[in-house]
C-alpha cells in the first residue's frame, strides 16, 4: 500500500472530523504522510459532514476521486459517496442508521456494552476500521490514549471490542519512518508564527481562520504569548497597532469579511510603518458566501486594500513546511521592514490537516534597532527603513502618526516632506523586492522543461502537482505574490509557449498580476463552487486544455 484513502461521513455532531483526525493520526504515527480534507456545511448539528483521509508513502496535499474505504455513520454517506469506492473497496456502516452493501457494524451496541456516551460511536468506528485494515492494536492504543483524554478507558474498551470483532481484510504495517506531527494548516501557520518570534495574537473568530486563534489560545501559556479576542476586527487590528508600537511582535487573523473591517487599520500600518502579520484565510465569496467552503478570490483585494500606496508582503503557502517557514518569515519581514505581512490562506489549506516534516529551527530574529541620536522614529535611510524603538526609552520621544509626518512623527503638510515619505516607502518596497526575489519563493514542479506551463498559487498547487504528474506540463507557483518575485518567475517561465492558470475563482485573480508582468495566460481553468478539485477531476480538466 502506498496510497490509501478513507472517507468518513455522517452528521455534524457525530464527531466525524475528530474521528477523521484520529484515523489520520494513526497513519501518521505509522510513519505515513497523511492529508485530511473536511467538508462540512455551516451548521452545528445535522447536515452532512465528511472527511477524506489519505495516507501515502510520499507527501500528499490533495485528495483523489476514489477512496478505498467508506465509513458511513448514516444513510446519506452511503448514498452520496458509494460511487467513490474503488472496486475492491469496502463500506463499513453503522447498521443502526444505514443500509449498504458492505460491513454493517452496530455502533450503538458497542457503546451500550460499555455504557459509553452516544458520541463514542465514532470510537467504535475507528476500532472497526483498524481491525479491518489489520493495523496492530499496539499502534492504535497509544494514539487513542493521547487523543481521547476524557473517558479514555471507556473509549479504549469500545475501540478494542469493535477492533476484535471485525473481519480483518489486509494488514497495514508501519513504514519504518518516524511518527509525523499531524496538524491543520492553521496550526502549521500558528507554529510558524511562534517560531518567528511572535509575542501576541489578536483575532475575532471567523471561519476558516479561527483555527489559528484556537491553537494559539491553547498554547499561550506554554509559549508565554498574549492571545486576545476583542469586540470586533476593527479593534483587532488597532490593538495590534498598539501592541506593536509598544514592542510586541503581533499577528492577527481573519477571513474576507473581517478583513474588510481591517483595511482602514491596514492603511494606517502603511503610513505609520507599524509592523503586523495578517493571516487572511479565504472562503467562497462575495460577502458571507459559503463560510465553510474554499476560494481564492481575495488575492487582488488583499493586494490593493487600504487607501494610498505602501509596501506589503503577501505569501501563500501550499504545504505545511511552507506554512511554517513563511509564517516565521512573515514575522521577520514585518518587523524588519515595518510593514504589514500577509499569510494568504484558504479554507482548504487552513482546515486541511497535514503531516509535515519540518526542522523547527527558529529563524533568527535579531532586534533591528539602531536608534539615531536624537532619536527620530521616521529617520530616513538608504533602504527607507527607520530605527524602531518601543516606549519607554528614557530620554527619547517616540511618536507614530496616521497623517503625513516628518522624521519625528509630527504632522506635516509640506509637499517636500510628503514626497520624501512616499519615496521612503518606495525604497522599502524595493529593498523587500530584492530580498524575496529568489528561487526559494517560486516553486517549480512537474516537467521542468515542458513548454506548457500551469501557474497556480496557494493550496491548489497540491492538486495541480499530482494532476499533472503524468502530463508533459511544467508547474510554476509563486509562494510570494507581493512584491512579485519577477526575475525568478521570469527564469522559471523560460521556454514556455502555452500558459494555463488554475485557480479557485470565478473571474481569475493571479492572471491580472501575470499580465502586469507581461505574461498573458492562454486559458484560465477556474472553479468557483467552493470545493477543491480531486486530483482526477483536475487532471481531466487540464488534459482538455493541453
Amino acid at each position, binding site marked *: 500500500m502506498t496510497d490509501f484513502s478513507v472517507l468518513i461521513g455522517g452528521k455534524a455532531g457525530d464527531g466525524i472530523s475528530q474521528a477523521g483526525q484520529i484515523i489520520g493520526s494513526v497513519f501518521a504515527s505509522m510513519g505515513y504522510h497523511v492529508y485530511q480534507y473536511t467538508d462540512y456545511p455551516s451548521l452545528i448539528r445535522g447536515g452532512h459532514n465528511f472527511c477524506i483521509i489519505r495516507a501515502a508513502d510520499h507527501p500528499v496535499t490533495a485528495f483523489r476521486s476514489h477512496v478505498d474505504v467508506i465509513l458511513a455513520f448514516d444513510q446519506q454517506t452511503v448514498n452520496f459517496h458509494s460511487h467513490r469506492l474503488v472496486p475492491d473497496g469496502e463500506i463499513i456502516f453503522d447498521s443502526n442508521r444505514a443500509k449498504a452493501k458492505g460491513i454493517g457494524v452496530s455502533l450503538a451496541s458497542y457503546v451500550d456494552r460499555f455504557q459509553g456516551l452516544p458520541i463514542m460511536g465514532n470510537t467504535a468506528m475507528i476500532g472497526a476500521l483498524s481491525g479491518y485494515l489489520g493495523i496492530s492494536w499496539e499502534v492504535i492504543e497509544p494514539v487513542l490514549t493521547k487523543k481521547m483524554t476524557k473517558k479514555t478507558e471507556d473509549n479504549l474498551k469500545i475501540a478494542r471490542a469493535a477492533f476484535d470483532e471485525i473481519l480483518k481484510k489486509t494488514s497495514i504495517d508501519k513504514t519504518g519512518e518516524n511518527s509525523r506531527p499531524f496538524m491543520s494548516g492553521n496550526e502549521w501557520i500558528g507554529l510558524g508564527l511562534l517560531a518567528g518570534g511572535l509575542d501576541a495574537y489578536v483575532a475575532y473568530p471567523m471561519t476558516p481562520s479561527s483555527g489559528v486563534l484556537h491553537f494559539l489560545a491553547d*498554547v499561550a501559556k506554554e509559549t508565554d504569548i498574549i492571545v486576545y479576542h476583542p469586540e470586533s476586527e476593527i479593534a483587532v487590528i488597532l490593538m495590534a497597532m498598539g501592541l506593536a508600537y509598544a514592542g510586541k511582535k503581533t499577528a492577527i487573523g481573519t477571513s474576507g469579511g473581517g478583513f474588510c473591517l481591517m483595511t482602514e487599520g491596514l492603511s494606517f500600518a502603511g503610513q505609520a510603518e507599524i509592523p503586523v502579520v495578517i493571516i487572511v484565510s479565504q472562503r467562497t465569496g462575495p460577502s458571507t458566501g459559503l463560510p465553510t467552503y474554499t476560494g481564492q478570490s481575495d488575492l487582488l483585494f488583499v493586494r490593493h486594500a487600504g487607501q494610498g500606496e505602501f509596501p506589503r508582503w503577501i505569501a501563500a503557502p501550499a504545504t505545511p513546511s511552507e506554512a511554517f517557514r513563511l509564517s516565521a518569515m512573515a514575522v521577520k519581514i514585518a518587523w524588519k521592514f515595518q510593514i504589514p505581512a500577509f499569510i494568504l490562506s484558504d479554507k482548504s489549506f487552513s482546515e486541511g490537516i497535514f503531516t509535515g516534516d519540518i526542522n*523547527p529551527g527558529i529563524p533568527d530574529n535579531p532586534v533591528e534597532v539602531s536608534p539615531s541620536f*536624537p532619536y527620530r522614529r521616521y529617520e530616513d535611510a538608504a533602504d527607507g527603513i527607520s530605527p524602531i524603538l518601543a516606549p519607554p526609552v528614557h530620554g527619547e520621544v517616540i511618536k507614530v502618526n496616521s497623517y503625513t509626518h516628518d522624521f519625528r512623527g509630527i504632522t506635516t503638510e509640506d509637499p517636500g516632506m510628503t514626497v520624501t515619505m512616499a519615496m521612503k516607502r518606495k525604497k522599502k518596497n524595493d529593498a523587500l523586492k530584492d530580498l524575496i526575489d529568489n528561487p526559494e519563493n517560486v516553486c517549480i514542479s512537474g516537467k521542468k522543461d515542458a513548454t506548457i506551463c500551469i501557474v497556480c498559487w496557494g493550496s491548489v498547487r497540491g492538486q495541480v502537482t499530482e494532476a499533472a504528474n503524468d502530463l508533459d506540463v511544467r508547474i510554476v507557483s509563486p509562494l510570494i505574490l507581493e512584491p512579485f518575485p519577477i526575475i525568478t518567475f521570469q527564469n522559471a517561465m523560460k521556454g514556455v509557449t502555452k500558459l494555463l492558470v488554475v485557480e479557485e475563482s470565478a473571474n481569475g485573480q493571479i492572471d491580472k498580476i501575470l499580465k502586469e508582468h507581461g505574461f498573458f495566460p492562454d486559458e484560465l481553468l477556474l472553479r468557483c463552487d467552493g470545493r477543491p478539485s480531486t486530483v482526477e477531476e483536475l487532471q481531466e480538466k487540464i488534459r482538455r486544455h493541453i
Partner: protein
Amino acid sequence: MNSDNSLISDAKNTWCPGCGNFAIQHAVKSVIEELEKEGVQREEFVLVSGIGCHAKIVDYFNLNSFYSLHGRTIPVATGIKMANPDLKVICFAGDGDLYAEGLDHLIHAAKRNIDITVICHNNRVYGLTTGQYTPTSPYGFRGKSTPDGIHEPPLNIIEMLLGSGASFVARAYSKKIPHLRRIIREAIMHPGFAHIDVLQICATFFNMTRFYDEQTYESSEANVSQFDVACRTGQQWDYSDQGPIPLGIFYKTFRTPLPEKREEREIDRLKAVRTILQNYS
C-alpha cells in the same frame, strides 16, 4: 527632540483662538509636571489620539504619542497597555470620534476595566470637518449635515457609561482649569478605566461659553462610590440646552483592572515549539 526639556513640542499649534483645547493641553501638562516631580518618568506616558481638532494635542506634546484613526483611540490604547502594563496610557478623543465612530470600543473598555484614561474633548460638534452634529449635540442643532436641525436627542454619556460598568466617570469643563486638572490627575491615578467627559469650548462652531459658565457647578463627591447617587447626578443634565450641569467625579470604584500583571517567565521558545510538535505527533 530630546535635547529640549520642555513638555511642549515645537510643532506649530493650529487651534483657533479661544479653543478649549488649549486649556486641556495646559491642564494635562500641569498634571504631568506634577507627576514627574513625584517620580513618574515622562517616558512612561503614552498619549493616544483619534482624528479631529482634539487629536492635534499629541503633536503638541514632547512625549511618546500615537496619532491614530478617527474613532480608534481605545483599541490602540488597550493594545499598548496590554503590551506593557507599566505605561500610563492616556486617550485624547473627540465626541464625534469616541461617541459616534468608535462608541463600541468605549463601552467594551469600560466593561473590561482596562487601565487607561480617556479624555473626551466634548465640544458637541465635529470641529475639524467644519461643523456637523455629534451624538452629544442638543436637539435641533443646525449643522452642515442638518441645516434644518437634528431630530434626535443627545446621548447622556454619563448614564451610558455608568450603565456599561465604567469604574471612574467624571465631567469637567475647559474653562475651569484647576478643577479639570484635579480630575485629570485622579483619572490617571485611578487603577482601571477612567473616563472624563470634558465640556470643551469650540470657539468657531459651537461656542457654549456663556451657557456653561452659567450652568456648570461642582457637584459633591462625598458619595463618589455610590452607584445610585452617581446615576442621579448623571441624570441632572441630559446634554440639552437646559442646565444645571454638574461637574466632578460622579463615580469611582475599585474593580480588578485589566491587564492582569503577567508573571515574568523565561520561556525557551524553540523548546516550546518542539514540545507542541511532539504533542501533535
